[in-house]
């Protein structure tokens, strides 16, 4: 079967699977939903009030019909009501998402603009001391968790520069672009650090692969300069694995901002998930997890489609 068609057909199927998984897992939480919602106040309910509430939220119905109701709500953009905020889950997500998106985009820009040149540089100096140093740094970078980098950055800034990064607040990009980027720059470095290291490694090995190809030898033999061979002939092909990595990684950045947003006290989507989990706001957990998984899947689908556009061999041969 055509790869693109197959990919497009399985996408809704997996999305459906994800929704079942999220729904079922929240139902597996011990204790009943009303107690979870009201906390200790649930003890004050009379049995009649309790069953009225159950009927109101539809939890007196069988599980599959609850699922169908929830699913049809999803299609209408109804993700339920958050018990912490008393607002529709979707509205809260829309409020928090721009920060996380901007953070992910900024870390990606940082990672690519550091990682690709470093990787290319190392590849052109294969096995020389400068290559070994870049590789060591990349290995070290890949082994450093974001929370270690984040804590170290805050430490260095506050002890050596007497500067405390802005925490807890966020200016939207369209209100004041400079302030907005300034607020997110250290969190973005934190989040992009390990990513930059993997970009360096991938672009280095992709570049080495491409540089040993026949067409590069042809280019060299017709007298192209080293600079033109590396940047004009080799780089476009060496970038294909980098594109794939970036796509997958971008999905992770959207979800993985949890820890970084926690360190820098940023009111983004990751922090929202964490708050929802620690405060047992199940509608919010369900909604945010589903939203992030949806984005993750969508980005991966787009990357795969872009990959097909870049490399026609996949279109014909299947996987």
């Amino acid at each position: 079967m055509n790869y693109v068609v197959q990919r497009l057909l399985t996408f809704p199927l997996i999305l459906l699977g994800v929704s079942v998984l999220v729904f079922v897992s929240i139902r597996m939480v011990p204790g009943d939903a009303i107690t979870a919602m009201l906390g200790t106040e649930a003890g004050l309910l009379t049995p009649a009030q309790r069953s009225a509430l159950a009927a109101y939220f539809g939890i007196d119905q069988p599980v599959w019909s609850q699922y169908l109701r929830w699913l049809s709500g999803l299609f209408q953009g109804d993700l339920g009501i958050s018990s912490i905020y008393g607002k529709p889950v979707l509205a809260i997500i829309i409020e928090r998402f721009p920060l996380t998106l901007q953070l992910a985009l900024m870390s990606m820009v940082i990672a690519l603009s550091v990682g690709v040149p470093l990787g290319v540089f190392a590849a052109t100096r294969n096995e020389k001391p400068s290559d070994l140093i870049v590789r060591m740094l990349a290995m070290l970078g890949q082994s450093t968790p974001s929370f270690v980098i984040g804590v170290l950055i805050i430490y260095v800034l506050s002890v050596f520069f007497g500067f405390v990064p802005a925490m807890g607040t966020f200016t939207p990009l369209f209100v004041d672009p400079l302030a907005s980027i300034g607020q997110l720059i250290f969190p973005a470095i934190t989040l992009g650090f390990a990513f930059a290291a993997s970009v360096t490694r991938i672009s280095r090995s992709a570049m080495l692969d491409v540089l040993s190809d026949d067409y590069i030898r042809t280019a060299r033999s017709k007298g192209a300069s080293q600079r033109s061979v590396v940047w004009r002939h080799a780089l476009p092909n060496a970038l294909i694995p980098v594109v794939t990595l970036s796509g997958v990684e971008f999905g992770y950045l959207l979800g993985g901002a949890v820890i970084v947003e926690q360190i820098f006290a940023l009111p983004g989507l990751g922090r929202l998930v964490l708050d929802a989990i620690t405060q047992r706001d199940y509608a919010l957990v369900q909604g945010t997890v589903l939203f992030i998984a949806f984005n993750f899947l969508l980005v991966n689908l787009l990357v795969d489609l872009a990959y097909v556009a870049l490399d026609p061999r996949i279109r014909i041969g299947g996987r």
Partner: protein
Amino acid sequence: MQKLLRAFLRHPSGRIGLTIIALYLLAAVLGTLGLTPRDPLKLFAIDRLKPPSANYWFGTDLLGRDTFSRLMVGIKQSMIIAFSSVALATLFGTIIGLLAAWWGTLWDGILMRIMDVLLAFPAILLALLIIAIVGPGTGTSVAAIAIVYTPIFARVVRGPALSLKQRDFVDAARTFGSSQPYILSRHLLLNLVAPLAVQVTLALAWALLTEAGLSFLGLGTQPPTPSLGLMLAESKNLMTQAPWLMIFPALTIMLGILGFNLTGDALRDILDPRTQRREA
């Protein structure tokens, strides 16, 4: 086996990686046996926030507990969680991947689509979802990391298993009347050891990272049991007065992950001759 070890010791990153892992395992064993310089839970009230000295090698924390001893127990905790979760993930992932490849068509489709659903979540998010259901703790961390990694092992096994299945020696074994479990374990699994070994080592690095991340968020190992992530998180408010509380846990986490990453890379170079020249 001896040949492998010798190749390992010739490989620079393999040598460093193995040394680090050996040191961490030693610390974990000593931590388990209670052979730490001091009692990791005991409060030395008069010695609060002492900088590193001959008495307290890595200093003490706000409650006067010895950082070095706490790090040893933290390493033990991390190692137990990492090894048991990766063992579970390897077991289940391998079984699922093998069966999907062996049974083929319908079962392959069903099993691998379920794996795709699990892979649709960013790893940390899936772990958080599981913690939201079961509540935080050591067992939950193990289960969460195992569930996150199972589909990855299933994929690593399924691909090569599919191509092995069509090789002549498997056909021959079937013609001779070998039983299915025999073919699966003898002919398929044995040939999958190399890719699995690489994946296991890299998974261990990732499991250490995730365990530290979860306990950093307060959702992993619960106090008073020392854990590397929690020690780092607690150091945040004291970093100007007591930087040693931050530096040592941070280095311990980094070095441990580095050790497994280096070993994994070395394994890949040694076991996969194609990449040998390039990435060595």
